[in-house]
């Protein structure tokens, strides 16, 4: 195989994707770190924000900051309008049936906790079972462990193989009539594995189990159609989708959300309160107690507009090309071992370097202006499986370039030199 040709080919495929133009939308990318141009490859931890998102938030605070759903004055009407139109954007973004199915929360973590407590705690007992996987982020493990302590519900894990893929036949064996919830990540944050969620959802439904998909890593890379997937819950975080921190989304099927009791009590989630009892508000407000993160919601709406303008199709073509390029280049580095080699993968490169601890790699790369994540990536069971304490993880977004990957390769070589 002629590697040079191959790389040229990869680059050709995405020539019409104007990265440099898009990079101009992200003010943060144009700075130096330790005297070198910033190379931001920690997109799985959080993505950067385009100017349009920053502007939308600023405009809210400058022009119409006020509380929503209660004032009769103009500012409040404008804020309510912006807040609810962002909900509509989210609904369309994931193709939900109705805005009643879109609940704003703090992030993926809060959404999972909400489902575990509101859906799980009231209906599950020690006769029941929940299935999650060894690939999960701690956010999709600990809430279920808590629920298990509270209700006695049994927690089972779908194992992974040496490529970091779920072992589907094992999943089949774990499923049975007692399975009530299956909670699976759409894409693994530690390894980049894209899970076969369509199959997982269909098989769970055969046993009448409900399925929660943790989409924290997915929405910035691939389009999501909750109707087509037929998942019961889908959760994601705004900050991994070029939006602000502190805002996220719980999608739930209307009939399920309707049956679930509130997660928190307070203002906004009620219709009427007497000293004796409370009548809860309609969906989705039943789950949005208190003054919400209004600027966060507006920022998330702007982020979705931005992503739609570029198109997730185009984004994924460019990101796949970046991943292929990075795979080829890094596979030439002796001593580098990929952790996570699934056939279906998103643009995450997790690796170890022989004799060099990831923490040291992170420090040396940072000195070259390159931001990556090192550690267990909040997925300690994955590290346990591979019998390593940590990995180095470079995660690419659509605003990353081939040149940046070259800088990464050079810096990895520098690590080896420091330790030679």
């Amino acid at each position: 195989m002629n590697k040079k040709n191959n790389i040229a080919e990869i680059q050709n495929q995405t020539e019409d994707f104007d990265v440099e133009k898009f990079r101009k939308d992200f003010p943060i990318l144009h700075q130096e770190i330790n005297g070198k141009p910033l190379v931001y490859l920690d997109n799985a931890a959080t993505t950067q924000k385009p100017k349009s998102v920053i502007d939308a938030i600023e405009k809210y605070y400058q022009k119409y900051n006020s509380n929503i759903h209660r004032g009769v004055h103009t500012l409040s009407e404008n804020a309510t309008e912006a807040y609810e139109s962002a909900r509509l954007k989210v609904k369309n973004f994931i193709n939900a049936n109705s805005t009643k199915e879109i609940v704003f929360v703090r992030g993926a973590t809060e959404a999972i906790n909400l489902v575990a407590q509101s859906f799980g705690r009231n209906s599950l007992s020690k006769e029941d079972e929940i299935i999650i996987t060894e690939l999960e982020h701690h956010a999709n493990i600990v809430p279920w462990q808590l629920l298990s302590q509270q209700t006695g519900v049994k927690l089972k894990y779908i194992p992974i193989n040496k490529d970091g893929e779920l072992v589907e036949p094992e999943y089949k064996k774990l499923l049975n009539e007692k399975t009530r919830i299956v909670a699976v990540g759409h894409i693994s944050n530690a390894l980049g594995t894209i899970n076969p969620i369509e199959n997982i959802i269909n098989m769970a439904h055969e046993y009448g189990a409900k399925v929660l998909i943790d989409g924290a890593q997915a929405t910035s890379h691939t389009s999501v159609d909750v109707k087509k997937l037929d998942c019961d819950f889908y959760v994601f975080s705004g900050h991994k989708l070029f939006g602000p921190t502190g805002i996220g989304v719980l999608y739930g099927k209307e009939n399920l959300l309707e049956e679930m009791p509130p997660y928190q009590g307070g203002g906004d989630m009620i219709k009427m309160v007497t000293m004796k009892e409370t009548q809860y508000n309609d969906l989705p407000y039943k789950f949005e107690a208190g003054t919400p993160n209004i600027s966060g919601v507006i920022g998330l709406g702007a982020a979705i507009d931005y992503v739609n303008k570029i198109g997730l199709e185009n984004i994924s073509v460019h990101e796949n090309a970046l991943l292929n390029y990075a795979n080829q280049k890094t596979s030439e580095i002796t001593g580098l071992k990929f952790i996570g080699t699934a056939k279906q993968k998103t643009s995450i490169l997790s690796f170890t370097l022989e004799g060099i601890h990831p923490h040291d790699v992170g420090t040396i790369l940072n000195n070259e202006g390159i931001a990556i994540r090192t550690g267990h990536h909040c997925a300690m069971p994955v590290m346990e499986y591979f019998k390593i304490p940590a990995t180095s993880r470079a995660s690419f977004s659509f605003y990353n370039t081939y040149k940046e990957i070259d800088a990464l390769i050079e810096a990895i070589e520098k690590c080896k030199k420091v330790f030679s």
Partner: protein
Amino acid sequence: MFDIKDLYQEIIVDHNRSPRNFGVIDDADKILEGFNPLCGDKLKLYIKTDGQNINDIAFDGTGCAISIASASLMTDAMKNKSIDEAESLFNEFHALITTEDKFDSEHLGKLTVLAGVKDFPGRVKCASLCWHTLRSALVGDNKPVTTE
């Protein structure tokens, strides 16, 4: 801008590659674990004392170059020191890696190669993990140490 070689000096790279005093002391009277949950560094100290002096000391575990080299250098420096001397060395070392204060390079000896970590605030914990563990074993409550 810092030169990365100020952090990863020859001595550190060497002690990381071939750590001294690496292993188990079977008849240790103090065994204590230190853990950094942030990066997964896990070290175990084995200390043999006569109540006043450190007669033997060793460690094992996994960690980054800074934490392994630091443990290697620390155990070297601690051999045949009294517990009082260990305590004062702890304080000197702590100042070395966290402050700009002048230090007694003669007294600290090779340990001074770790002075570079103060320019890398994220890495101070790596260098100090074994020291906190030692202190807890000798004069503290002998409870496992975590950096978080």
